[in-house]
């Protein structure tokens, strides 16, 4: 049973809903326009609302700009760290891509020659200013032997002169004490290429009536028992004919960029006289 008090409250609710319903149904389809009374109420309350809004806005701004920024420094440091890590990662990826390209070129070169070869990484250069050599990260344990030829996709690099179980020393063709038996690819003129400087070699013992012109490609002859026949060594950059000399003075620019030597191929055969340098058809 409902008591009279509850019945009265119920009636009040019903009345309020009825008023609201009347208001809603009367304003349906009409444009909402403030009545003069409503306007007066708005005029009085709006400034208060404005003050409250601006206060809240200021407090909120203050909060966001200062208190909430306490963590920003930490977040900023963390983001900077993340950026650094990503930059490092990006740099590593770029390095990997570059290494991949170089290895791909070496692989293509390896496929061109019918010769077992091993890729090795250059890990150091000669500490003196007098000799031209590099250290590689493969040695006896990888099957390397003395006097094996070292090449890259551009051409002849050098030969192995010292071996350790896991490392080896390569005498570069640009060293003044290196000698590579070569020939001019076009005219088959013979000579011996020796280092003169890191950028220029000299082709010795080219006969006076030999056919050598600037731009000729110099390749290994296969006669030196180190390099297989036909490995490019360099390009002729100058030919001089001194009447007082017995031979022509032929300067050769190496094809290999020795200052940027990173990976090399060691040809795993000790006797190249069998002419194994056969190109795939």
């Amino acid at each position, binding site marked *: 049973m409902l008591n009279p008090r509850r019945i009265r409250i119920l009636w009040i609710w019903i009345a309020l809903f009825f008023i609201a319903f009347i208001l809603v149904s009367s304003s349906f389809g009409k444009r909402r326009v403030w009545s003069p009374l409503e306007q007066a109420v708005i005029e009085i309350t709006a400034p208060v609302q404005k003050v409250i809004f601006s206060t809240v806005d200021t407090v909120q701004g203050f909060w966001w700009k200062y208190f909430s920024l306490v963590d920003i420094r930490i977040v900023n440091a963390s983001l900077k760290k993340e950026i650094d890590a990503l930059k490092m990662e990006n740099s590593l990826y770029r390095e990997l891509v570059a290494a991949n390209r170089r290895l791909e070129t070496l692989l293509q070169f390896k496929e061109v020659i019918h010769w077992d070869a091993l890729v090795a990484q250059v890990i*150091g*250069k*000669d*500490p*003196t*200013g*007098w*000799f*031209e*050599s590099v*250290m590689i990260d493969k040695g006896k344990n990888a099957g390397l032997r003395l006097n094996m030829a070292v090449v890259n996709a551009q051409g002849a690099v050098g030969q192995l*002169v*010292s071996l350790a179980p896991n490392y080896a*020393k390569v*005498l570069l063709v640009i*060293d*003044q*004490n290196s000698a590579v038996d070569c020939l001019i690819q076009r005219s088959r003129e013979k000579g011996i290429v*020796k280092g*003169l*400087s*890191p950028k220029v070699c000299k082709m010795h013992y080219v006969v006076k009536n030999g056919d050598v012109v600037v731009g000729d490609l110099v390749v290994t002859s296969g006669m030196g028992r180190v390099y297989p026949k036909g490995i490019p060594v360099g390009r002729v950059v100058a030919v001089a004919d001194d009447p007082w000399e017995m031979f022509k003075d032929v300067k050769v620019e190496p094809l290999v960029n020795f*200052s940027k030597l990173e990976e090399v191929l060691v040809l795993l055969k000790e006797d190249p006289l069998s002419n194994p340098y056969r190109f795939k058809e």
Partner: protein
Amino acid sequence: MISLLYVLLKGSIMKEVAPKFFDIDFGTAVIGYVLITYGSTWAGLFALGQGILVDLFSVGPVGLFSLLYLAVFLSLLGGCRFFDLHSPKGQVILICVAVYLKELFLLLLLLVFSFEIPNSSSLLILLGASAVLTGILSPFFFHFLYLLRRLMIKGLQET
């Protein structure tokens, strides 16, 4: 350790920045430093060790640089009678002379052992320039080594 690092890094750095035969040789300065800090016996041993190390990494004849660095040690030992290796002036003069003598001795040895040496007129100038520059830079290098020693001693005392 410094000497080992120097030998390992030298080839990669110097070959990139300096022309061939231009050789700023801080190894000589280190021998000088060991000579005035630890005495002639240790300096001699150090010179020999440094030479062997360079011989290992270089493609030159075995023992060449051991001999050269021993010669450097002897020239510094002899030079100490005339100049004070503790003073910057003495360091510049002695290191410069020792490096130049070392380079000339090397040239001579290479010629004696029939190694090919390019007939370049600029070779002697380059060798002289390397010696002078090494000499000029040596007081800074000595100072660096003193500083390093002080720091090491301080570190040891703290531990």
